[in-house]
């Protein structure tokens, strides 16, 4: 796939918009919110990324990547027009049908907003299908917030409620959002579990505490959906790297309900 556009989200996160080189693929390629893909820079290797754009927006996909290792470093060094290796889409997806008519609460942390963004736009593009929508999003600091333009757009919309927060110490004089860790703010905002589904993604430690907070707020384990991250190589349920118990995150995940997670060995 070819890089069509690069957005610098934060000092170490970029969003790449990718388009297919093959004519046919432009129309034929389809995916669901929550699925992931393998991007590669030849010579440096391959790495796993969730698709951060909505399936409703055709003709391109977007992936947001944080510079953390060899492959992400190489991807950050690419320029508009460069060609990347692509495999996908892989994995399961958010149960969109089951969310219809429900109140949706999105809880994201850091770059964990990426898979949620795919779903959020998917829902917003069919806004009538869902009841109230709330997005709680936080990052370490103001600079680390991703999709800043979209956050402003969401903020301005009257059909959803955006709650922003930064970790203590990550604020500055101009910050008008919350200050505090995402799970704490979730408890503070205290959304009602009634007819609601909570979808969360973020660093493992945040997910852990969000799940606890959701539990405290009265969400049943079936009402909470998250995505898990494990190191992956093949994405095809072969290489044995992403196993958590008998599940393959690449095939059976990355999307899980909290109830499913409760039945897994605590090794993620």
């Amino acid at each position, binding site marked *: 796939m070819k890089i069509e556009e690069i957005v610098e989200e934060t000092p170490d996160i970029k969003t790449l918009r990718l388009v297919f080189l093959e004519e046919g693929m432009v129309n034929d390629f389809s995916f669901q919110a929550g699925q992931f893909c393998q991007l*590669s*820079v*030849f*010579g*440096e*290797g*391959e790495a796993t990324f969730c698709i951060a754009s909505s399936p409703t927006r055709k003709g391109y996909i977007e992936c947001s990547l944080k510079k*953390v*290792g060899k492959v*992400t470093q190489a991807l950050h060094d690419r320029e508009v027009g460069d*060609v990347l*290796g692509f495999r996908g889409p892989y994995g399961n997806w958010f149960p969109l049908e089951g969310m219809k008519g429900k109140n949706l609460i999105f809880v994201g942390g850091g770059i964990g907003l990426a898979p949620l963004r795919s779903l959020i736009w998917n829902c917003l593009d069919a806004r009538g299908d869902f009841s109230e929508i709330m997005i709680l999003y936080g990052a370490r600091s103001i600079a680390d917030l991703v999709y800043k333009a979209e956050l402003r757009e969401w903020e301005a919309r009257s059909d959803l409620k955006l709650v922003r927060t930064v970790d203590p110490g990550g604020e500055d004089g101009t910050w008008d959002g919350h200050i505090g860790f995402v799970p704490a703010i979730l408890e503070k905002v205290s959304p009602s579990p009634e007819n609601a589904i909570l979808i969360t993604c973020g*660093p*493992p430690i945040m997910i852990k505490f969000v799940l606890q907070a959701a539990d405290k707020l009265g969400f049943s384990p079936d009402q909470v959906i998250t995505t898990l*991250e*494990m*190191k992956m*190589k*093949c994405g*095809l*349920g*072969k*290489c*044995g*790297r992403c*196993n*958590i*118990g*008998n599940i393959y995150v690449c*095939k059976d995940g990355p999307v899980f309900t909290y109830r499913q997670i409760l039945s897994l*060995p*605590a*090794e*993620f």
Partner: protein
Amino acid sequence: MGKEMKEKALSRAGQDQLIQGLRERGFRVFGPRESGGLVLFQETQSASDLPSRYSNSARSIKEFFLPAQESLLSYGVGREEIQTRYSAEEPLPTVLFGVRPCDAAYLPIIDKVFAWEERDQLYLSRREKTLIICLACEEPDEACFCTSLGYSPAGREGCDLLLTPIAQDRFFAEFVSEKGEGLLREFPHLWEEASPSDQKRRKEVEAEAKGKIKRRVEMEGIKGWLDEHFEDPLWEEISRRCIGCGACYYLCPTCHCFDIVDEGNLWRGVRRRIWDSCSFGHFTQMPAHQPRESQDRRYRQRIMHKFRYYVDRFGPIACVGCGRCIEVCPVGIDLTEILARIQERATTPAKG
């Protein structure tokens, strides 16, 4: 078993003619050969290349289906485009001659993971093009425990043809699969009728070999205990001496985890698949997250994957009892001891 398995006898000279005949028909024939103090599968010209006495090859036959390293694709990056070429070469017709039944038994187990949903064509096409001719095991090693897993030194799982030495100059031949039966038709002059005494002798040979296997682990209860004991002090206890090398993995037939690496520069190179092991820390190391940060967790994964997760997912236990892990462990970790300890816990009524 719908139909009767075909049984014949083969002379030692016939064994050699079989190898010759297969070679003439374009098969590459590999058999165990001794070199540098190790028995390894190598290209074989004749039956005389086979070592006279050995329990098993140092490396399992998995490298013929999942090589230690193989190219997945090669790439060339030009000014305008990137060219990739997948390594989809048809594998050459291959015969593995003299495979021990425990090694052959690994195949039907591991076929399952390579064939579910996305089919791994590299593995499966090699599988299809390879004929497995087993040689029943007369000299089980002190570390062997195939019988505990329900296999036998003269077992048929995964074989196409099973040869059991029944006399100095005579083998009992069982045509286990369709592919194996093909040999019966292809080389009609080689096979002699098997007599009832041949059959009797075959059974005796198997019983004798079984009798030489001193290790015995009862598998009952182990899965149930593992289901309940993801967290348990036992894991730390049994893995403390583990130094985290990959010897047990790399020699284990059923261990099949791999890594994918790019080698080359930004203009041209190769993407390869290589063996990898859950005993290494980097196996699950993500930039900011490590779900298995100590050796006990990694060791637990090894046991759990073989005896619990694989069973849940695919049915069979991912262990054939070949004993290589026991044989090669530089610090004396013994899988059968560990299984016995788990079994003991599983069958002892819980305290408190």
